[in-house]
């Protein structure tokens, strides 16, 4: 059972203002680095004149693409662009100067002449037959390796035996991560000539790779030290690699420590966004609700560059049909390049978009069938022993139906649905209640090896240090790992400290993504702690005249299981172990079993475990002002075991806020490919005043493959929220097929209200 919550391991520093984020660091002699952005959607660089800039007061270095050993990081992201710029954020020159104002003055003195080129500004434009192909050597604008098909059964046969066929198109928009801390690094050199970069990075090993590429240094001579990260949500990956690489180059050129910190505008202009999707779904069902066939085309906008869609779209294809049993499926997911900001990882990694489309489709299909949303889902929910669309037979507990029924019960859904259906259609305020159910493959699954590591060290005084290869980016990973290590060793968590990732110390355990920090990242922590425990038990057994296998450890004591009075303190055994030269520092490594995946058919065992979620939303729409407000959210999860309740609840509440923003407020807007809302005065995210009443529950669940029985939560917490809100809006007579649902759409709908606007749920019987 879960122990009472201790404070987060990083909380004291954070509430006292002592946590040093990357932008808080200072080194003697540090200088400021800045970049010159092209601010063009698509253009050829005719000339760059740095003559005046280089002579400006306080300027130490101005660099162009030719001055770098390598112009781009892995994939095609350029540190500096030489010939052709592909989006607004592309960088033409780097400047190092004694101060920020001096660097800014130098930027203003650089003269660049551009030849404007026609730009590709949407998915539709990218797919046109006469489109401009943006990347050389390609025949079209498809992002390399981004096409992931699923072929199961025979979809034509499935439609032939369906009695109702429904086709729908849905869309989503660019969404900004909006971490409150903008990107920041400080690059310096070590006494041995190595490069050291302190950074706000979600994936320090990626940043290390980028620094090595930019400088030509070997990975062994680059050390990236993660500082506390002020929010990331998948965002501090590509742009942090680019920033770290640029700072390292300037550091080597000038011989001075270089600090580079983005303002909000630069952060929004350069950094990855949630991929916008265009969904075309076609579903076929029998009158009794059994879904016989699903055909889906999911196209996402990769933007100018991309190293995410090729991975993300794999997850997209696995989850494209939702948590339902469908015999005949044909799914195609692919991404296209445009001249807009690139898409990247963002909390959910395609799922919030897909669940919005696919759970909207379920409600629309229910409407067509004259069934309630719940009835239709209950006919089709996956259960244990069923096959997913990738042909995986589910052997672990499948709790889609269970979380749904519980969430509906907690939200008083059935009663409210009837009551809201009986509203006077002329009321100014219209209410609706709706829900969405989802599942999420835990960790990386068949996308990539889910391997990772951790070092657990016990010091001679009994204090313990846990160093994971995965990063705490605010989600509370260090706290969860300390809890797991403490449980294994039988000690109180107060004696455990944790360090942020230092690539010079911990092994490369891959990226902190896919909600795998606890699910997979906890495993090497437990393995390393178990090995130390074994060493300590061998010593303790001698002292207690017992056998090691008869011992147990709890609350800082090691004792004989059958006779707990025969015991020795953890500290005493640790001291003895240290004096005896025993190993008290262990590197744990988790390597999962290989997974088979057939790329041409999309068949295979996608994930070892799945988390299940249902979110119920209640909304109110003021038909005069056009304002839609979420009044209440209920979120029920099967995440296996909850390791730290306070941190887990925080994930769910945070996911609600982010999902609410995606549903009703957030969209990066463009003018001819250039972002027009690059700060929080125009890009709105939810404030405390926007938060609805919020309820959550974790249902008891075991029998999964996660560390200590814990499945994924961070992304699951968010992903069904926009869909639930959309279905609640639909229940209130406003079916939204494009996110976000701005109030203009409710105004626009007002006039058409009587003209048979889609009212999917209004005639359903419960």
């Amino acid at each position, binding site marked *: 059972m879960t122990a009472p919550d201790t404070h987060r391991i990083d909380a004291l520093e954070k509430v006292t203002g002592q946590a040093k984020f990357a932008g808080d660091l200072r080194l003697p002699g540090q200088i400021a680095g800045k970049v010159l952005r092209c601010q063009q959607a698509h253009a050829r660089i005719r000339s760059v004149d740095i003559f005046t800039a280089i002579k400006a007061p306080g300027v130490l270095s101005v660099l162009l693409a030719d001055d770098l050993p390598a112009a781009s990081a892995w994939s095609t992201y350029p540190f500096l662009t030489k010939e052709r710029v592909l989006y607004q954020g592309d960088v033409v020159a780097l400047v190092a100067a004694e101060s920020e104002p001096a660097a800014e003055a130098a930027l203003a003195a650089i003269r660049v002449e551009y030849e404007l080129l026609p730009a590709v500004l949407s998915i539709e434009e990218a797919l046109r037959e006469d489109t401009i192909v943006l990347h050389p050597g390609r025949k079209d604008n498809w992002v390399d390796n981004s096409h992931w098909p699923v072929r199961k059964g025979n979809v034509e046969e499935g439609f032939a035996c369906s009695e109702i066929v429904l086709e729908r198109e849905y869309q989503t928009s660019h969404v900004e991560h909006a971490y409150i801390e903008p990107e920041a690094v400080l690059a310096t050199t070590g006494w041995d000539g190595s490069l050291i970069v302190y950074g706000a990075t979600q994936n320090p090993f990626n940043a290390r790779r980028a620094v090595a590429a930019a400088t030509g240094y070997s990975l062994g001579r680059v050390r990236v030290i993660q500082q506390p990260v002020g929010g990331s949500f998948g965002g501090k990956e590509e742009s942090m690699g680019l920033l770290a690489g640029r700072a390292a180059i300037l550091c080597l050129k000038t011989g001075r420590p270089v600090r580079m910190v983005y303002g909000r505008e630069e952060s929004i202009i350069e950094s990855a966004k949630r991929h916008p999707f265009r969904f075309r779904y076609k579903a076929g069902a029998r009158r009794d609700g059994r879904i016989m066939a699903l055909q889906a085309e999911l196209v996402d906008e990769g933007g100018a560059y991309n190293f995410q869609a090729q991975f993300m779209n794999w997850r997209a294809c696995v989850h494209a049909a939702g948590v339902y049993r469908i015999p005949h499926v044909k799914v195609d997911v692919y991404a296209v390049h445009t001249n807009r900001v690139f898409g990247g990882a963002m909390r959910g990694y395609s799922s919030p978009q897909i669940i919005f489309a696919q759970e909207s489709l379920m409600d629309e299909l229910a409407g067509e069938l004259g069934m309630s949303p719940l009835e239709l889902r209950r006919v089709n929910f996956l259960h244990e022993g069923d096959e997913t669309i990738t042909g995986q037979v589910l052997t672990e507990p499948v709790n889609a139906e269970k979380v749904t029924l519980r969430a509906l019960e907690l939200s008083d859904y059935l009663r409210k649905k009837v009551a809201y259906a009986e509203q006077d259609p002329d009321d100014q305020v219209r209410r609706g209640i709706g829900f969405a159910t989802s599942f999420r493959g835990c960790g990386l699954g068949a996308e990539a090896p889910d391997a990772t590591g951790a070092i657990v060290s016990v010091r001679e005084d009994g204090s313990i240090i846990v160093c994971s290869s995965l990063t705490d980016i605010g989600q509370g990973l260090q706290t969860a790992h300390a809890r797991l290590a403490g449980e294994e060793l039988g000690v109180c968590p107060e004696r455990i400290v944790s360090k942020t990732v230092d690539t010079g110390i911990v092994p490369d355990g891959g990226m902190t993504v896919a909600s795998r920090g606890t699910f997979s990242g906890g495993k090497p922590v437990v393995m390393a702690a178990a090995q130390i425990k074994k060493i300590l038990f061998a010593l303790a057994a001698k002292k207690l005249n017992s056998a090691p296998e008869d011992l147990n450890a709890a609350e800082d004591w090691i004792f004989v299981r059958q006779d707990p009075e025969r015991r020795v303190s953890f500290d005493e055994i640790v001291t003895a172990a240290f004096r005896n030269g025993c190993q008290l520092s262990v590197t744990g490594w988790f390597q999962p079993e290989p997974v088979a995946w057939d790329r041409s058919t999309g068949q295979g065992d996608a994930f070892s475990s799945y988390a299940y979620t249902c979110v119920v939303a209640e909304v109110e729409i003021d038909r005069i002002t056009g304002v839609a407000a979420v009044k209440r959210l209920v979120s029920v999860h099967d995440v296996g075991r909850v390791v730290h309740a306070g941190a887990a609840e925080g994930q769910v509440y*945070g996911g609600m806020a982010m999902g609410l923003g995606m549903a009703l407020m957030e969209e990066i807007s463009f003018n001819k490919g250039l972002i027009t809302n690059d700060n929080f005065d125009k890009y709105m995210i939810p404030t405390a005043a926007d938060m609805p009443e919020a309820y959550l529950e974790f249902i008891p669940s075991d029998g999964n493959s996660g560390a200590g029985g814990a499945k994924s939560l961070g992304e699951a917490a968010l992903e069904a929220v926009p869909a639930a809100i959309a279905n609640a809006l639909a229940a209130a007579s406003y079916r939204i097929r494009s996110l976000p649902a701005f109030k203009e759409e409710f105004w626009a709908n007002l006039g058409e209200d009587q003209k048979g606007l889609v009212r999917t749920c209004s005639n359903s019987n419960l």
Partner: protein
Amino acid sequence: MAKKRLRLTVNGVLIDREVEESLRLLDVLRDELFLTGTKEGCGIGECGACTVILDGKAVNSCMVLALSADGGVVETVEGLGSPDRLHPLQASFLDHHALQCGFCTPGMLMSAKALLDEDPRPSEEEIKKAIAGNLCRCTGYVQIVEAIKDAARRRSPSEV
């Protein structure tokens, strides 16, 4: 650029020095006094990460020219409490796990302190309004609001 004399009381300590006219209060705190607990998140007074208390009111220190605050009394997160003597708000944030990445936390704490200094027993709505200028992308605010309510109870238990 010219320098002018700036006198401030920051966390109870009198500061008297020459600063550039163009500096914001935020710059003086972070770059001159090394009080880096106060953060910059947007630079335009929208996110609230730079919130400090100036003469009893919560302000966005990115929107205050340092010299315009001459003679003022400034409180930052560093002056709120120390690890062994936490302010009730800090203790309550710990107990309610009312933080994740922690970047908005100092500003959030200062907005909350300004509120409780003015109104020891605010309603939930008043709390939400007081921190509506402090953006948090991690928490969904629920545990933060709970923490502030609880801190208010701890500060004036007799009124419970």
